[in-house]
Each structure stands twice: as structure tokens, then as C-alpha cells.
């Protein structure tokens, strides 16, 4: 049921809408075909980032890929949380880890569990959406997750133009050209969390540089 819904919403409707509205062009989309759990990382400027990645995932991976969403924003009410879980296939996590002495779910462990189950993650290391075509500092979470799962690769994606179509704080979409450049899967085996984060950042910067 959920699988069928995701297929119709993303692979059919959203893919068509994006194509008509912004002529979304995928460069090296073959890199998205990775069987097995992986962590898809991209730059984040718009809600469309999640949607357009989901819309272009191969079918067998669509229902197995879980975007990571901030629990305080997308889980404001139980209704919104249920919607996000169902229609976005998201995993809602708290923005920060519990401090010492506190109890509560650990976002890093939640993400690791998804990967151990054999599913994939889609996350934006910049955290919140930034201004169109600009990068924010990458956060450590992705490094901490990948450090614990040494056999799982990350797939970097650079998206251009989506932030202009639907930027933060403006609900009206305006057509612009958009591009997604997908990098090859990279296995960060044996590196520390910090090294992994800077590797992720560097990979996405390199994809961006290929445009300029």
C-alpha cells in the first residue's frame, strides 16, 4: 500500500511535474542505482530536494529509502508526523543527541538502525535549508553514522536550481531550470567521523565545480 503510494506520488506524478515545470535534468543517473543500503547526501536549499531525489530513485529503492527529517518541524503534531512518515517515507529524528544524564532517542543510533535493517538514508548534512545556490557548514551527523557502518557507501548529489523554484519561506513555486548531478558511491571505510564529513563536503563541492 505504502509502496504503491510512494510509486504513484514520486515516480509518476512528481517526476512528470518536475519535468514539465523545471525540465529537471539528471546527470549520471546510473550512479543512483546502488543495490543495498547506502546514504544519499545532497546540498539542501528547498523542500524540492527531497522530492526530486525520491522522484528519480529506481523503483526497488524507493520504498527502502528514508529521508531524515527534523522531528520538531515535521513532527509538530501527531497528524503531521504520520503524514510525513507515510507520504515522505521519512524517519523523524530529534535535532540533537541527548546530553549526558538525559534519556531519549539518540538520532545517530536511529539512523544506524535503519541502515542495519538493510534500508537506505537520504539526508542533508547542511541541516536546515539554506539560501539558493549557497552552501552552509556541513554537520557531523553523517560522519558519525557512516563511521559506525563501515561497509555502507554514501552517494553525493549536487542539486542546482531547485532552491530558486521553491526557496525557504516562499510557498509559491516559480519555474526555473534545474539539474541534479549524481556522484559515484564512495566507501569511507576506516575513517573518522570528521574525515568522513569533510569527504562528503568535498565530493559535493566537486560535483558543483563541474557545473561552473
Amino acid at each position, binding site marked *: 500500500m505504502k509502496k504503491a503510494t510512494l510509486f504513484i506520488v514520486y515516480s509518476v506524478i512528481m517526476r512528470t511535474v518536475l519535468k514539465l515545470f523545471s525540465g529537471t*535534468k539528471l546527470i549520471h543517473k546510473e550512479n543512483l542505482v546502488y543495490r543495498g543500503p547506502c546514504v544519499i547526501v545532497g546540498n539542501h536549499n528547498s523542500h524540492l530536494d527531497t522530492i526530486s531525489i525520491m522522484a528519480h530513485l529506481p523503483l526497488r529503492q524507493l520504498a527502502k529509502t528514508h529521508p531524515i527529517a527534523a522531528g520538531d518541524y515535521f513532527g509538530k503534531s501527531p497528524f503531521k508526523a504520520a503524514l510525513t512518515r507515510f507520504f515522505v517515507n521519512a524517519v523523524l529524528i530529534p535535532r540533537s543527541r541527548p546530553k549526558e544524564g538525559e534519556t531519549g532517542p539518540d538520532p545517530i543510533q536511529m539512523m544506524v538502525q535503519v541502515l542495519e535493517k538493510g534500508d537506505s538514508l537520504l539526508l542533508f548534512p547542511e541541516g536546515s535549508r539554506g539560501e539558493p545556490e549557497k552552501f552552509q557548514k556541513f554537520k557531523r551527523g553523517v560522519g558519525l553514522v557512516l563511521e559506525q557502518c563501515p561497509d555502507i557507501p554514501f552517494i553525493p548529489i549536487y542539486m542546482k536550481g531547485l532552491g530558486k523554484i521553491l526557496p525557504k519561506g516562499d510557498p509559491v513555486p516559480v*519555474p*526555473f531550470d534545474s539539474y541534479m548531478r549524481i556522484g559515484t558511491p564512495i566507501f569511507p571505510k576506516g575513517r573518522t567521523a570528521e574525515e568522513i564529513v569533510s569527504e562528503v563536503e568535498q565530493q559535493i563541492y566537486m560535483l558543483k565545480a563541474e557545473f561552473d
Partner: protein
Amino acid sequence: MILKFDLQAFVENKETLIVISLIFGILVFATLLFWIMGLVRPNANIGELKMRTKSWWMMATIFVVATVLDPVISFVAIGALSFMALREIASISKNVREEDRKILIWCYLAIPVQYLFAYYKHYGLFLTFIPIFMHLWIPFMLVLRGVTENIGRSMSVLPTQLMLTVFGVSHLAFLLSLPELEGFKAGGRGLLLFVVFITEMNDVFQFTWGKMFGRYKIIPKISPNKTWEGFIGGIITTTVVGYFLRFLTPFSGMEAIIICLSVAITGFIGDVVVSAIKRDVGMKDTGNTIPGHGGILDRIDSLALTAPVFFHIVYNLYYLK
């Protein structure tokens, strides 16, 4: 409203059939030529030419299918071309400020309106809607946004983009709305086919002549590939081709020569104007929608200017009674 294949009328119309066969004949010839060149001299650098030919196949097929089918489809197809061209130019333009996002919506909304005027053959509104009403409305909307920094630039950039991608291109559609003339069978479709074919061949001829004999550059800072040899060779060849294709039009021999010369020169102007815009934003091609050609705009830059020039010459010569 029923959409129909107008195939019978199309097959009966020998003129268009000849030109369409000619288009695909040229493509077959080019494909074979580059294929053989690749076999004879495997080291020859013709990858780009091959890619271009492949794209031409696709564009020619889409164009021919859209022209042959019901006029409604032709209008929608040409309107979609305007939409993609406007989106492309708005996406590369660094002169579009963040505040102009919302104004762009007005520009996009102008597309269906302009094409409806063309479809319903409302010549007066078709001609005035963008040059007068949109040129009034866009600056006013910009003023209402209340950000004055660089507002003058936006006031001129946005309407200019509309003129190029919507007003200019929509003349192709209005050709289909022209009334029938006595003794001229090919009609609007013939004229559409003629101007598109002549314009695109002009691009190809200027490119080819320039590659083969080009020495003296016309405007090296804007378009280093544009040479006097390419320009002159191009307009002459285009005019010769147009002269022999005049059975698609109501033109006499002399008229065909003058009109083809104007189209060829205008095509060159459109090409260099868009080149200059691209230089301004530091870009080689305006997008990468069409492999080997760059973006939509790179292919229709000349068409955006030749279509209205051709249209108004023809309109004033034959349809203004």
C-alpha cells in the same frame, strides 16, 4: 474540440511533403557522411557534429510531427517552446534579482494569453499585448514590490526576455492563423515550414562556411566563430535555397530573394545578441537541454528574431488588404 490527424490533407499537400522529405533527406545525408568520415578517418574530430546531427533528427521529428498534427497541438508545442526558452533565459540571467521571482510568474502567465490571441486570430491584441500591456504591467508590479535597488535593470531585462522568447516565437504560431489566400495552397503551414527551415539552414550554412573558410572575424569579443566568410557564404546559400523553396510561399522570385536575405541577416543578428547575453553571464551554452547544441535558446535565438521579421514582411505584402 476534437483533435485529429490531418494526414490526408497533409499527403495531398505536395509542397509540404517535398520539404519534409528534403529535411529528412539532408539528415540522412549528414548522418551517412559523418558515419563514413568516422570510418575513413577514425581520428577526425567529428564527435560534436555527430551529436548535433543526432539532435537535429530529434528536433526535426518533433517539429514535423507538431506541424502535421492538429493546429491545437502545433500551438501548444510552440507555446511550450516559448516556456522552455523563457525559463532558460530567466535561469541563466544574473540580472534577475531575488525580488523578481514573483514577477517572473507574470511573465510565464503571459505565454498562454499571447498564444490564445494567436489561436483566436486576434491580430491587434496579439501584436500589442506584450509590447504595450506587459511593458506597462511588469514595471508596475516591480514598483509594487518596493525594492528600488537595480529596479531599472529589472524593468528592462524582464520585458526584453518576454519579447525575445514569447513575442518573437509566437509569430510562428500566428502564421498558422493566417487566412487562406486564393491560389496559394501551402498556406500558413507552408510559411511556418519555410521560415523555420530557412532560419535553421542559415545557422548551419553560416557555421559550415565559417568552419571551412572563416578568416576575418566580425565581432571576436562576442562570437569568435563568426566570420565574414561564414556570414556572406551563409546568406548567399540560404537565399539560393529559399529561392528554390519558394513554392511553399506566395512569393515571386525577386520577393523570395529579398525576404531570404532579410531572414538570413536577421538570423545572424539574433544569434549574436543571444551570444552577447551568454557572454555577460559567463556561459558558453545557455543550457544543456539539446546534446551538442547547448540549450533551447541556442537553437531558437535566431528564430526569435527571424519569425517576426518574416511574418510582418509577408503580412504586409499579402494579407493586408
